């Protein structure tokens, strides 16, 4: 009975913890876009001045293109505007078959080799960048929603160590610019709004835009609670 009470109390505690986390709105994170001047914001909002939109247009064509004797992305995923909405926001994610974290372009290539049965596209090729840009475009303006896969805890920790590791001729770590000088944004909880602890040389977000280790743990715990 005593044991049972303890487990109920533990469950209650967990529920409280997750509901507290769920109520942690409004989101303290901000996009770097918000810190730009109005002039730069308007420039960035103008798709026509952005050559990246050429790749998005490419990707839209490739989405419907039938590769070899196989089928197109649209055959399984239908309209990317619906099916890919928010998808890019959770990458890199864990791939249980490859047993490693994969980023969005690797996921696209895995889809090619597993389902379309065609060769993977070369890294950073025009086609792959186009598809990636098109898929990521469907998540435009959405906040990052990092995967809660438990397997990502270890790679994230590895990423954090690399991020904090001083390297190179100038003996600087990533964090020395991206974390330690983040007081420029004033008292808005700057550490929480700037990208902390992003991944290794591969680029963005092996780790989310999280404010503190507590929040990282909280996220992991919530992920655990939800199974």
């Amino acid at each position, binding site marked *: 009975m005593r044991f049972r009470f303890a487990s109920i109390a533990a469950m209650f505690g967990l529920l409280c913890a997750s509901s507290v986390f769920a109520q942690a709105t409004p989101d303290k994170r901000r996009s770097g876009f918000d810190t730009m001047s109005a002039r730069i914001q308007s420039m960035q909002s103008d*798709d*026509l*001045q952005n*050559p990246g*939109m*050429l790749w998005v*247009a*490419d990707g839209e064509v490739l989405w419907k293109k039938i590769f070899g004797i196989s089928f197109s992305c649209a055959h399984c995923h239908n309209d990317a505007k619906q099916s890919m909405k928010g998808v890019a926001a959770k990458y890199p994610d864990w791939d249980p078959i490859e047993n490693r974290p994969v980023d969005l372009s690797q996921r696209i290539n895995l889809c090619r080799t597993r389902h379309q049965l065609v060769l993977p596209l070369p890294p950073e090729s025009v086609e792959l960048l186009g598809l990636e840009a098109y898929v990521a475009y469907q998540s435009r303006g959405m906040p990052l929603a990092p995967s809660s896969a438990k397997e990502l805890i270890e790679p994230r920790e590895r990423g954090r160590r690399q991020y904090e590791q001083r390297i190179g001729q100038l003996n600087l770590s990533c964090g020395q610019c991206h974390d330690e000088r983040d007081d420029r944004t004033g008292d808005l909880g700057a550490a929480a709004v700037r990208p902390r602890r992003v991944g290794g040389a591969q680029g963005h977000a092996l780790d989310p835009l999280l404010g503190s280790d507590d929040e990282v743990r909280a996220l992991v715990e919530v992920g655990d609670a939800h199974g």
Partner: protein
Amino acid sequence: MARTLIHAPTTARKGEVMEIRTLIAHPMETGYRAGSDGRTLPRDIIRRFACRYNGELVFSADLYPAISANPYIAFNVVANASGSFSFTWEGDNGFAQTENATITVA
């Protein structure tokens, strides 16, 4: 076929000044850079851009090697009649591309 992005208004009042903006995908290889094998990469640039409004040349530009890849060109045109725009890019290695846009002037 190179990819282009064109922003041109579809309707305008007579006498209105319209901004037209164009972007085309092109490497604009200068002819001065060395490739990975050390040999100079041959020049490959767009040499001329022209915009015709109902057949009449209203804007043109000569482009040179110092202009960046994917050249973005914006210019103003006075709306005086309904009709069509044609945008032409011409360059090295027989590069030629034409795109069209229509406009209704009230």
